[in-house]
C-alpha cells in the first residue's frame, strides 16, 4: 500500500513539474501553430497525473522490500559498477574489470579465490577478443606504459 502511495506522490509531482515546464516552453521561431513542442508533453502530463491519482486512491499490495542490510548490499553493487566506470579510462580495462567481476562474484556468494580467477579470466578474454578479434579498442590504461 505504502509503496504505491509514495510512487503516486512522486509521479504526481513529476507530472506537474513536467507539464509546467512544457507550458513554459518558449514560442518556436516563426510563431505558434496548432500543435507546438508543448502539446504532446502536456497530454502526457495529464495522463500521468490522472494515473498517479488512481495509484494514490487504489494502491496495490506491497512487494516485500529488502532489509537495510540488503539495501546496503545493492547500493554497494551499484557503487562497484560506478567505480568500474571511473577506473575504466585512467587505469585501464583489465584492472577495472578484474575488480568489478571479482567483487561481484564474491558478493554473489563465490569464494575469494575463484572470484579473483573469474575476474582476471574474463578481463583478459574479453580484452583479447575485443582488441584483436573484433578490433574494438578498449582502454589499455596503465598497461600501455609497460606493454608499449
Amino acid at each position, binding site marked *: 500500500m505504502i*509503496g*504505491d502511495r509514495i*510512487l503516486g506522490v512522486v*509521479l504526481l509531482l*513529476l507530472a506537474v513539474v*513536467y507539464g509546467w*515546464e*512544457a507550458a513554459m*516552453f*518558449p514560442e*518556436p*521561431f516563426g510563431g505558434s*501553430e*496548432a*500543435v*507546438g*513542442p508543448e*502539446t*504532446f*508533453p502536456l497530454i*502526457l502530463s495529464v*495522463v*500521468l497525473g490522472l*494515473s*498517479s491519482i*488512481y*495509484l494514490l486512491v487504489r494502491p*496495490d499490495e506491497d*512487494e516485500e*522490500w*529488502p532489509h537495510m542490510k*540488503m539495501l546496503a*548490499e*545493492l547500493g554497494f*553493487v*551499484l557503487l562497484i*559498477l*560506478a567505480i*568500474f*566506470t*571511473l577506473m*575504466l*579510462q585512467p587505469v585501464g580495462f583489465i584492472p577495472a*574489470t578484474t575488480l*568489478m*567481476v571479482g567483487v*561481484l*562474484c564474491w*558478493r*554473489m*556468494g*563465490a569464494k575469494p579465490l575463484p572470484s579473483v580467477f*573469474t*575476474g582476471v579470466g*574474463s578481463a583478459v578474454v*574479453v580484452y583479447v577478443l*575485443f582488441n584483436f578479434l*573484433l578490433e*574494438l579498442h*578498449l582502454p589499455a590504461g596503465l598497461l600501455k606504459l609497460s606493454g608499449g
Partner: protein
Amino acid sequence: METLNFLLQGFAVALTPENLMFAAIGAILGTVIGALPGLGPANGVAILIPLAFSLGLPASSALILLTSVYAGAMYGGRISSILLNIPGDEPAMMTCLDGYPMALKGRAAEALAISAIASFIGSLLATVGLVILAPILAKFALRFGPAEYFALFTLAFATLGGITGKNQVKTVVAACLGLMIATVGVDITTGNQRYTYDILELYEGVDFIIAIVGLFAISELLFFIEMHAGEGFKKVSLNKLNLSMKDIIQVLPTCLRGSVLGFIAGVLPGAGASLGSFLSYTMEKKIVGKSGYFGEGDPRGVAAPEAGNNAAANGALVPMLTLGVPGSGTTAVLLAMLISLNIQPGPMLFTQNAELVWGVIAALFVGNLILLLLNIPMIGIFVKLLSIPPKYLMPVVTLVASVGIFAISNSPLDLYFMIGFGLLGYLLRKLHIPLVPVILGMLLGPEMEKSLRHALTISDGDWTILWSSGLSVGIWAVAIAGLVLPYLIGPVLRRRMAAAQDRDHSIVD
C-alpha cells in the same frame, strides 16, 4: 508469386557463407541465453544490440544475427523448464507442467527432443504465416494516415499489458514514463530544446539502447543478489535419448494445432506468446480428453505449449514489421535494433527495404533449421551450461553488457546512465510497474508525437480528426477494449493459469 520471388531473393541474402555463420552464432548464443534462468530473450537481445552495432556489421547481417538470437532464445527457454522446473522466460511456463514430470520419470532427453521438434514446427509454420500475412497487412497499412497511426500507437500501449495484465494503470504509468523520456532533447520540428537543462549530452535525447540494457540487465543482477540466487538450482540429470518415429507421429497433430493457435495469438495485439502457449495447452487437454495424462508427463503436454509459444513469437513479428508496433518485450527490443540501424518499420519497409526484410525472413527459416539440428545432438552441451552457477555467470554477463554500452561511443557517461537505469528498473519492478511499456514509450515516442502533429496540422488544429475515419474509430475501440477487458476477463484467466500450475506442483510434491 511476387512474394515467392522476394523470398528467393531473401534466401540469396541469408545463404551467403558470412550470413550463415552469423545465423549459426546467433542460434547458439540465443539458445544459451534462453536456457539460463533469469536472462530471457528480451534481455539477451538487448545485451547483444550494442555489440552488433559497434562491430559495424552491415544491416542485414546484424539483423540476421539478432533474429537468430531471438529464435534461439525461444528454443532455449524450454531447457530450464524441463530440467529445472524454472521457465527461462514467461512463455515457457506452460512447458514446465508436463516437461518436468517427464524429466522426473527419467525421460528428460525425450522431453527435450519432442519440445525441439514442436518448437521447430511452430516456428516454421508461423514463419510461413508471416510470409503470407505480412505483405497483405503491409499493403492494407498503406491506407493509414497520421490519425490512424496515432490511434495505433495508443493501441500498442493499451494492449501491452495483455489480456492477463494485472493493473492496467501501471501499464499506462510505464508508457507515460517512456514517452516522457523520449521527449527529452531537441524537438525535431521546431528546434526547441525540451528538458535538456543545457546539458550538451541530452541534446540528442536519451539513447534507448542504454536504457534497455540498464533496465533489463542491471536490474536483473540486483534481483539475483537480493534473492541469493547465486548458487544455481538443482537439476534433473539427462538420460540417453530413446525416441521412435511413432512418438514423433503421436505428437504431430498436437504440434499443428498448437502452431495455428499460437500464430493467431502472436499476431493479435495484447495476446502474446504466454497466452499462445496457455491456449494451446488447454485446448490440447480438451481435445485429447481422458486418454491423456496431462500434468503427469504427457509428451503432448510438452509439444502443445512449445509449438504455441514459438509460433506466437514469430507471429508477433507480423505487426512489428508491417506496422512498426511490437506486441511483446522481445519484439520491442528487435524494434529498437531496427531503429538504431536507421530502418523505420512500417508498411514502407516491404517496398523500400524489401531485400533486407526478406533476407531476415529467410534467415528465420535457416535459423530454425540450424536450431533443430543443433538442439537434438548438442543438447548435452547446453545442459552442461545450465550447471554454471549464476554467481560466476551474472558478473560476466554484466561485464559484456557494460562493454557493449561503452563501445558505442567510448563514453563513461553512457555507463553512468546505464547504472542509473538499472536502479530505476529495480525500483519499478519492485513496484510492479512493467518495464516493456517504458521501453516501447522511448521507442515509439518520436513517431507517435510526429503523427499527432501531422494529423493536427492537416486538420488545422481540429482534434476530431483523430477519430474521424471508420478505420481510426475501429482502432480506438480495440485500444479501449484492450485497456478495459483485462479488468473483466483478466481475473478469470489468471485464476485458471494459476490453477493449472498448482495442480502441477501438487503432483511434483
